[in-house]
């Protein structure tokens, strides 16, 4: 499914630029809006993967959009475009959960890179969700337990019951490993 980007900036030319960059260089879909106040409505209508927003805008600024995303537990990632010198605001945005920030004027490579990263992230998240969705089916749980049992036992044999090593190799929690070892060895 094509990933979607929402770009928000009070400067129309900047929006055009971003749109052009995205369209010409990325496979992603882009929606742009000049009016930040429309964003919640747009977001209400569809889901996006990424929101690229300017920081300082009249009406609703980048941070507020970020808050909106957080409050509504949306999955969109937000990239903030900041002016050179708004470092503190950028840090603040990061603390509030922005994915990254780009200072303008920017080289298009930079923004592409960041967008790519964000999209990759989102893909990963989606896939993981899909996987978890699959794995949350009922029989899987038992299969999981059985699998884990064998897996841990085998590992324990290989690693001489060294819990920390097992932990490292399997990626499972230590408590879980001990539990399995106790129960099944």
């Amino acid at each position: 499914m094509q990933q979607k980007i929402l770009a928000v900036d009070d400067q129309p030319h900047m929006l055009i630029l971003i749109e052009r960059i995205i369209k010409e260089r990325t496979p992603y879909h882009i929606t742009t809006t000049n009016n930040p106040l429309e964003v919640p409505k747009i977001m209400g209508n569809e889901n996006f993967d990424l929101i690229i927003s300017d920081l300082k805008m009249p009406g609703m600024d980048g941070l507020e959009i970020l808050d909106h995303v957080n409050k509504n537990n949306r999955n969109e990632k937000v990239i903030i475009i900041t002016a050179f010198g708004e470092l503190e605001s950028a840090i603040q945005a990061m603390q509030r959960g922005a994915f990254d920030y780009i200072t303008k004027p920017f080289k298009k490579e930079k923004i592409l890179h960041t967008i790519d990263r964000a999209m990759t992230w989102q893909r990963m998240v989606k896939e993981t969700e899909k996987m978890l969705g699959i794995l949350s089916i009922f029989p899987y749980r038992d299969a999981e337990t059985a699998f884990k049992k064998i897996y841990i036992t085998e590992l324990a044999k290989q690693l001489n019951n060294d819990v920390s090593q097992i932990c490292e190799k399997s990626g499972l929690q230590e408590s879980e490993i001990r539990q399995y070892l106790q129960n099944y060895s």
Partner: protein
Amino acid sequence: MSASEKSSITWLDKIFHGQRLYIVNLFLLFILLFLVFWISWRNLAIIKEVIRNDFNKQQLVLARQVAYGVNANIKDIQNDLRIESQYKSSFFNNKLQEKLSLIYKRLVPKGISEIAFIQQRGNARVFDASGYSEYNIPNEIRSVYFSQPLIEDFFVLELPKEEDITANPKRLIEIGTPVSISESDKYLLVATVNSTFLIQTIAQKVQSGETGYCWVIDDQGRILYHPKSDYVGENAFEVREKEMPYISFDKINQIQKDKMLTGEEGTGSYIAGWHRGVSGIMDKLIAYSPVKIPGTEWLWSVAVVAPISEVQAAIDKMYTRQIILESLLILGIFITVFVAFVYKRRLSQVLEKKLRRTERSLHQTEEYYHAIFESALDAIFLIDEETRFISMNMFTAKVLCSMLSQKEGQKPCEFINPDQFVGMTLREILMEGDAEFLEKKVKRVYRRKKVESFEHRFWMNDRKIHFNSKYIPIFDEKGNISSVLGISRDITEKKEMSHLIYNTEKLASVGTLAAGVAHEINNPLGVILGFTDLMLDRTEKDTQEYEDLKIIEENCLNCKRIVENLMSFARVTEGLEDVVDVNRCIDTVVQVVKNTLMTNKIVTEMDVEENLPKVPGDARELQQVFFNLINNSAYAMRESGGVLKIRTRIRENNVDIYFIDNGVGIPNHLHNQIFDPFFTTKKVGEGTGLGLSVSYGIVKKYGGTIKFTSKTKVEAKENEKSGTKFVVTLPIHQVQNNHEIVKVETIES
């Protein structure tokens, strides 16, 4: 006033002025006193004469009385005898004895010593003190008696001295009158008169004054009567001298000889040696009167004498009284004068003390105000309608000195003396324009009678000096303006300060504006860059379009860099980094000033040490420090360019940043001042004088130092060039754990 009047006044003034007055007064007083004494002395002398004369006149009266008395006495005796001689028959009975005794007793008081009835051819029957007796007279004597010529029935004869019976040299006189009884015999009735007794009866009672007496001499110069009994009978001319040879009796002798013996009447005075038992030299007053003995040619002279002391007492009393009076008067005058003098002295002393006290306090007050006046750092002066200076304080004189020396093109005066300007007009001291301006103000005060408050500026030695002046009218009692009080305050510093503040604020606002502008520029810049990038993507390399687009991109990037530097420098960044990369700071600053340096033909040599550790500080502030130092170097090399070397080094725990130029250098005598606020050698408007002081403050704040060495061309040695080297030393930041602000996203399980 004519010359003579003038001179007369001064002459009098000289006399009556002050101390001289006393002396003149005293002198006049003495003269006066002397005159008074002299006159009174003369007066007294005259009075003395008068009194003496009066006294003598009295004595004369007495003398006359005595003379008359003596004369009368003799006449009485004669009359008595005559009457008796008429009773012829009474002589020739046996009662003759009785008769004679009666006659004797009757005439004794008149001075007879005996009465005799003498018969020519018979005896003399005498009655005297011892009684009746008869005796025979020698014939010679008898013949003398009876041959005496008669004058008016009398004869008077003097018994010769050798015939005196007694030892006492008395002058005996016989007064006889014939008693004719018969033709055959002649009879005489003769009275023997002791002239002394005769005189004594009268003279004895005489008292002239208190003690005056009289004496009588005859025409032979014999003393007939004198209270001093041993004088009687003696020669009047010799007796005194005999007794008191040490006294000169010329005077009395002369009187006796010339006056008395000649039968004259008169008065006089003489020196005597005796008076009523008191011996000793004394002056006597004498009055003399002649006695003519009837029946004779004899001339006696009566003298009434009294010592001067008689009169003298009165005179003395007068003298004494006069002297006492005068003395009292003089004493009174002197006491008064003295008291007045003392009083005046004390008064003047008290006044003087008071005056001195007042003077002192006045002096103190004067000094106090004078100190204020003089130490005031404002120009305070009095000026009249013709703009002449009446008085001024030291500060005014300083200012005027500079103005005058500037007007005359000389160096400022060494010794400043306010008095040298008193009386000069504004036009004489100031340049024409300034003088005219202030002149108008002064005249305005006089016209409007109100305070004039204004600002004005002078050019003084190529510096603009601002003054804030108030010209205040000073009124006299009539309400006219007597002078104008001017107070001028040098507000150059204040003006410069306000100018500076204005400039700073302008700069700040410019800075803010620039920052805002830069910020705004960033947006379209970003757009341009972005689209250019897109176009570049579509354009083939090595085409003209490609090249053109590349040029556009490059210039846009340039703009971006400039904007970044500008914003970095103009404090738009909100970053509160407290560590600074020195090299980056320098870079930023150099970027900003690069062009300026180039246009001023200044070559910049960078010599930075790589991987310079960070120092604590604020990037903006350190940029400011570097900017200041670079600017100063550039200014020092503005004439003919030069080389600016910027070097960074690590030294122990510090970072040293060097700014080395070969400009004109800083003269030795200014080395102490360059970090002072507002200190600048630039002209007004070119610099504020704050650069180095602020830089110093910043560096110090972060625990660093700024040091410098400098040599001017004059101070440099032969082969050395002039130049300045500034070293900023900052301590290295002690590295701690890097706090990275990155949130780690966890995948929810």
